[in-house]
C-alpha cells in the first residue's frame, strides 16, 4: 500500500532531529572545553569514531542497509552523550568499553534504532562506573585550579599513550559531588565543605557553568519542539523537592537543591537523556511520573547510595518501568468518557 497522505512535512527526518540535538549540545561542549581544557575534543572524537565503526560493524552483522541507518545520526548522539558523561583524558580503552556497551549491547542486541529498552549512553556509563570506578572519578580539575594546563597534544598523549611524565594529580581533582560525599561522611561542617575549592556558586566549579549550558541547550530543544516540557520539568522539579526535603531533615548530610541542580549529570539528564523518546515514557502523564520518579531516585542515590551521582542509574531504572507507566497513563481519547483506559483488553466491536 502507498496511500494518503501524499505530502509530508518538509525537512523532517530522524537525521534532522539528531543533528538538532547535537547542535543543542554545542554550547555545553564549548563551556566544557573552556573550563576543563581541550580533553573533551579528544573524547568526543574517540567516541564518534568508535560509534561509526561499531554501528557499521553491527549493521553488517545484522544484514541491515548501511546508508539510511548510518545517516540517521542516532549513534553520534549516543557517542556525544557518553563522551560528555565520562571524565576527559581517560585512557582510550575506557571509551571503547563504554561505546561497546552502548552501541553493541544496549542498542543492537536489542534490535537497533527504536528497539532498545535502555538508554545506550547510560548503559555504557553504568557499565564503566561499575567496572572501573577509579578511572571514572578522575575528572580533570577546572583549569584555574589545576596545577598544570593540558594542551591538545598532551590530551591525545594522555588518552592514547597513558600518563607519561604528567602526574594524575597535576590535572585531576575530586568533583564537587565526590567531595561532598567523602567530607560529609567524615563529619565535616557544611560551611567548611562548601568553602573547598571544588565548589562554586551552585555546584562544582566549572561544572555548574556546563550545567547552565545544558539548560540553555535544553531550552533550544524545547523551542524547536523536539522535546515537551513534561520530562525536564518533572525531573528538575522532583530533584528540587527531594533535595530540599532531605536538606531540611538533615542539612549536615544532604546538600540543598541548588547544589543538586548544578552538579553532576542532572541538567544533562533532564534535557538530553531522560527525554530520549525511545526509552522514556511517552504519554503526557506518563512522562511526568517517569521523570518525577527518576529525579527523586537521582537524589536518593546521591544521598544514600555508594556512587557519587545517581542520574544514570535512576534513568536506567525508570527505563524498565516506562512501558508499564505508559500502559496505565493512556490519555482520554476524543469522544470517550473520562477514565476509559486504552490498551485494556477489548473484544472486536
Amino acid at each position, binding site marked *: 500500500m502507498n496511500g494518503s497522505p501524499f505530502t509530508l512535512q518538509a525537512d523532517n527526518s530522524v537525521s534532522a532531529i539528531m543533528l538538532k540535538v547535537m547542535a543543542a549540545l554545542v554550547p555545553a561542549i564549548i563551556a566544557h572545553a573552556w573550563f576543563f581544557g581541550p580533553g573533551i575534543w579528544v573524547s568526543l572524537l574517540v567516541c564518534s569514531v568508535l560509534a561509526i565503526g561499531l554501528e557499521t560493524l553491527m549493521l553488517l552483522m545484522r544484514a541491515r542497509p548501511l546508508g539510511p541507518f548510518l545517516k540517521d545520526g542516532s549513534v553520534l548522539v549516543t557517542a556525544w552523550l557518553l563522551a560528555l558523561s565520562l571524565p576527559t583524558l581517560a585512557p582510550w580503552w575506557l571509551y571503547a568499553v563504554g561505546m561497546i556497551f552502548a552501541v553493541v549491547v544496549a542498542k543492537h542486541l536489542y534490535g537497533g534504532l527504536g528497539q532498545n529498552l535502555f538508554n545506550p549512553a547510560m548503559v555504557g556509563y553504568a557499565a564503566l562506573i561499575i567496572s572501573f570506578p577509579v578511572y571514572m572519578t578522575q575528572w580533570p580539575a577546572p583549569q584555574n585550579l589545576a596545577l598544570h594546563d593540558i594542551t591538545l597534544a598532551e590530551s591525545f598523549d594522555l588518552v592514547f599513550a597513558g600518563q607519561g611524565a604528567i602526574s594524575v594529580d597535576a590535572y585531576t581533582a575530586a568533583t564537587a559531588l565526590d567531595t561532598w560525599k567523602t567530607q560529609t561522611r567524615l563529619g565535616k561542617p557544611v560551611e567548611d565543605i562548601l568553602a573547598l575549592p571544588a565548589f562554586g556558586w551552585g555546584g562544582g566549579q566549572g561544572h555548574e557553568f556546563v550545567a547552565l549550558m545544558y539548560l540553555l541547550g535544553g531550552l533550544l530543544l524545547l523551542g524547536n519542539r523536539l522535546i515537551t516540557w513534561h520530562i525536564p520539568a518533572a525531573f528538575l522539579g522532583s530533584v528540587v523537592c527531594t533535595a530540599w526535603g532531605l536538606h531540611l531533615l538533615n542539612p549536615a548530610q544532604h546538600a540543598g537543591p541548588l547544589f543538586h541542580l548544578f552538579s553532576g549529570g542532572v541538567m544533562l539528564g533532564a534535557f538530553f537523556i531522560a527525554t530520549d523518546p525511545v526509552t522514556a515514557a*511517552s504519554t503526557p502523564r506518563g512522562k511526568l511520573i517517569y521523570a518525577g520518579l527518576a529525579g527523586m531516585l537521582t537524589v536518593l542515590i546521591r544521598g544514600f547510595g555508594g556512587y557519587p551521582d545517581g542520574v544514570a542509574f535512576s534513568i536506567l531504572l525508570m527505563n524498565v518501568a516506562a512501558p508499564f507507566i505508559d500502559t496505565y497513563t493512556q490519555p482520554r481519547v476524543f469522544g470517550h468518557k473520562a477514565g476509559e483506559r486504552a490498551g485494556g483488553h477489548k473484544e472486536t466491536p
Partner: protein
Amino acid sequence: MSRRLFHFHGGIHPEGHKAASSATPIRSMDLLPRYVVPLRQHIGTPARPVVAVGDRVLKGQVIGAAEGYVSTAVHAPTSGRVTAIEPRAVPHPSGLFDLAIAIETDGEDKAIDMQPLDWRNQDPSALRNRIREMGLAGLGGAVFPSYIKLNPGTPRGGASPIHTLILNGAECEPWITCDDRLMRERAMEILEGARIMGHMLGARSIIVGVEDNKPEALAALASALSQVAAGDIEVVAVPTLYPGGGGKQLAYTLTGKEVPAGGLSTDVGIQIFNVGTAYSLYRAVTLGEPLISRVVTATGHVAQPGNFEVRIGTPISDLIAAAGGALAGASGEIVGGPMMGFDLMDLAAPVTKAVNCLIVKSPALFPPKPEALPCIRCGACARVCPVELQPFEMYWFSRAKEFGKAQSYNLFDCIECGCCSYVCPSHIPLVDYYRFAKSEIWEREREKQAAEQARARHEFKTFRLEREKREKAEKFAKAAEASKAKAAVPADGEDPEAARKKAILEAALARAAKAKEEMAAAGIAPKNTDNLPARVEREISEIEARRAAMSEAQTATDPATDPPRAAP
C-alpha cells in the same frame, strides 16, 4: 456576534496551495459526447437501473432508482441514449470496476420538466422524499444520502433533538477550493439551502463554519446574510488548522461538544452538512433540479487549474483536458485532497458525487516519499492527532499483527486524517498500517461470524440427528410394545392367520428343495458359472490375476486411494 471557539487537540498546518485554483471563477464545461454514471455514488445500497440499453433519456431523468433505505437516485446528466449498463472504471482506491450506465449525448441537452416548489409550505417528510428522488448525498466526500440525515428523529420534550445545524465550509484539505469558490459565488443559495435544512430538522441555530484562510468566502456569506436578514444563521470564521473540517472536529470547534466514540454528531444534537450539499439541496428543493452536477477543483500540474461545474459522469480525462491538460512530467492523479485522497487508477473513471478535487501530480509537487526508518517513539504523531490517540502504539501493534491490542488502543476512533504520517520523522506510512489493521479486523470478524454460523448449523444438525434417532427408537419401542401387547392377548390359542402363512411358507420351501434335487439328478447346472469347462476356468482365473495386479499398482501410485483414516 462572536462565538466562543474550542480548540481540538493537535492538528497540522500543511502548505495550502489553494491560490493555484481559487483565483478564477467557476467555469462550466462543454457538453461531452458521452457520460458514464455509476450506480453506486453514495454510501449504502447502489441505485437500481430503471432504464434499458437503447432507451432515450432526458437531462435530469432518473436512470437509477434508490434501492432500500440507505440509498438515493442517480440521474442522466444530459439527454441522449443509453449505450451500456455494465461494470466500468470508477474513482475508487481499489481500482475495481462497478456497475454504471453509459449515455451517448444527443447534443440537445433537453431536460425533464422540472417542478419548482415553495418549501415553506411543505411537510418535512414530503421534502425528504423529494430529496431522495433528487439524488442528494453529502458532497463533502462521505456521500451519505442526505434525506436520512434530514430526519431529526423523535422529538425530545416537544422540541427537535437536533438543536444545531452546522454547514461545513472549512475546506481544510490543501489544494481544494471548490467550496471556497462556491461560497464566494453562490452564498445566497447556500444560505437558502441551510434554511431548508434547518426547517426540516427543526434546528434552533444554524452555524456556517469557514476556515479563516478564506476571507472572500466569509465576506460573501456575511453580505448574503445581511441581505436576507436571517437571525438564525451565524457565519463563523474558524482557525485554519487541518483537519478542522472533519465533522467531529468542526462540531467541537464551534460548540465544544464531543461526538461520542462510535457515535454520530446527532447524538449531541448537531447535524452537519457540507456547503456544497446545501447549495445542491436548494436547487433540488426549490427549482426541482436533481443532483446532476457539482463543483470540482482541478489543480496541480495542469495548465489552467481552477474550479469547474462538472456534470456527474464526466470522464476525469475530460476534466483534466478542461483544465488545460496535464503538463509535461505529470506523475499521476489524486482524487480528493493530498491528505485523505487516493491515487486514481483509470483516467476513464467518471466524476461522481463524491469527487471534490482532482490533483495532477508531479515529482516536484509531490516528491516520492523517503524510505521509512524504524519508529523512535518520538511522539510527534500523538501530539498532532486530533483524536488524541497514541498513533505509534497503534502502529507497533498493527505491524506486529496484534490487532486486538491495536483495537484496544482505539484504532477504530482513527479518522485517517493523515496528520501522524505527515509529521513522522521516520516517514512511516502510519495510516496505511491502520487501514491494513482495520481491514484485517473486519475480515476476521466476518470469518468469525461465518464460523459461528457454521458451528450453529453443525450443532443443530447433530441435535436433529440425535432427535430423529431418539424419535425412531421411541417409535420402534412403542411399536414393539404394541405388538407384544397384541401377541400377549392370544397367548394360549394359536393365531389362525399366522398358522396359515407358516403352512404356505413351509410348502414353498419343500417344493424348492424338491426341484433342486430333481435338477441335480438330471445333471442340469443350477448356475451358469458352475461346472465350466477347464479352458474357461483358466481364462477366468487369468483375468482375475490381472485385475488384482492392476488394482495393486494403482494403490501404490495413487495416494488418494489410501484407505480412509480412522475418524478422530
